């Protein structure tokens, strides 16, 4: 499932991952490290909500 940053609107897509932060494609949101931050605005995982 995709997750949306409530602060800036960035969408985390597990299929794409976040290679710039060392997150491989296929990584689910739940499996992101706790210290992972939004690559656009820098807030933590707690600021993300499932995409409707």
């Amino acid at each position, binding site marked *: 499932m995709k997750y949306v940053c*409530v*602060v*800036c609107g960035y969408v985390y897509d597990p299929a794409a991952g976040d290679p710039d932060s060392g997150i491989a494609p296929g990584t689910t949101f739940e499996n992101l490290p706790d210290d992972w931050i939004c690559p*656009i*605005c*820098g*807030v933590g995982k707690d*600021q993300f909500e499932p995409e409707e």
Partner: protein
Amino acid sequence: MYNRKTIADNIFYVGVNDRQKNLFENYLPLPGGVAYNSYLIIDEKITLIDTVDASLADVYLAKIEAVLQGRAIDYLIVNHMEPDHAGSIGLLKQKYPNLQIVGNRKTFDMLNGYFGINTQLHEVKEGDTLSLGKRTLTFYMAPMVHWPEVMVAYENSDKILFSADAFGTFGTVDGDYLDACINTDKYWDEMRRYYACIVGKFGAPTQNALKKIATLDVQIICSTHGPVWKQEREKVVDLYDKWSRYEAEEEGVVIAFGSMYGHTQQLTEAVAEGITAEGIKNVVIYNVSKTDTSFILSDIFRYKGLIIGSPTYMGGIYPLIEQLLFSIEHRGIKNRLYSCFGSFTWAGAATKQLTAFAQTMGWELVGTPVENKQAVFAQKYQEGFELGQAMGQKLKSLR
């Protein structure tokens, strides 16, 4: 003809005042105008920090030329790509074709998108330094204060923070740009309104940026809007800290009401009387049909209490109140004491929807919302008074 204004040895203020524009971002009133600040550092590398709105480019370029007197610019630091600061990049690039643009990866995506500029770039990352000769700049990323590419630059010999939009305010700089040389009274309300409207949604990223800034010894803050803060710098940082935590500045209540024929307004009077009867002095009443939302939003950031009144309109909330609710929800304002009231003629809807707004925002609902049918008589006036009392008592309990 331009007096060269020095912030520190060989650092010049080259910003401009916009006294023409009525609406910032084409929707926020500018009764006192706005300044677009830019700073020029003369060193082995001549360095310009941010630019100004393109509508004032002719004045701006002349101010730069008054300092440079024929020399060229080596570096343009782009802390923020919003057009009120980046608007003159294209013109600068034409006049000084050899200048290198300093920014981060997100800056360059926007630079290419807005101007088609993708060469002579110098990319910086968190904590990177850039030597200008005698002076050195260190860069820190401040994403979402107020766009994702925002960064700040710190000059370590005079301890100057070039802070982009952070610590900015509406209002021109009149005569002198330095806080110690002017009466700053006019800025505090406008700084809050600027924060509430422009940055208000981004409390968490602002807190992140403030934590980084707290590790630096900052003596002078050079923002992109409003005065340069030296004497008042601590107050300015404290205010931004408070607002970005959504903490109210002081005890008091904003009552925002809409009223077509005066009945909801009568309830407003009753509620206000109840609040002051409890010894709460700061009661600020706004008729949403008279006052722009941005001013109301600013006072909602200022005070702990908020009470909203609306007539039922087409089976819902009065349109201008709806706009206010949208503005509040969009900013994600936290920790307010809230209540509501309203009136209707044949089928009540507004008060129920306003009551549900407490849940939407995660706020505590104080007292019993009052819903009045048609004209206001003694019973409903009393209920309005009691609602105000309940809010006043709740605020007193926090003293």
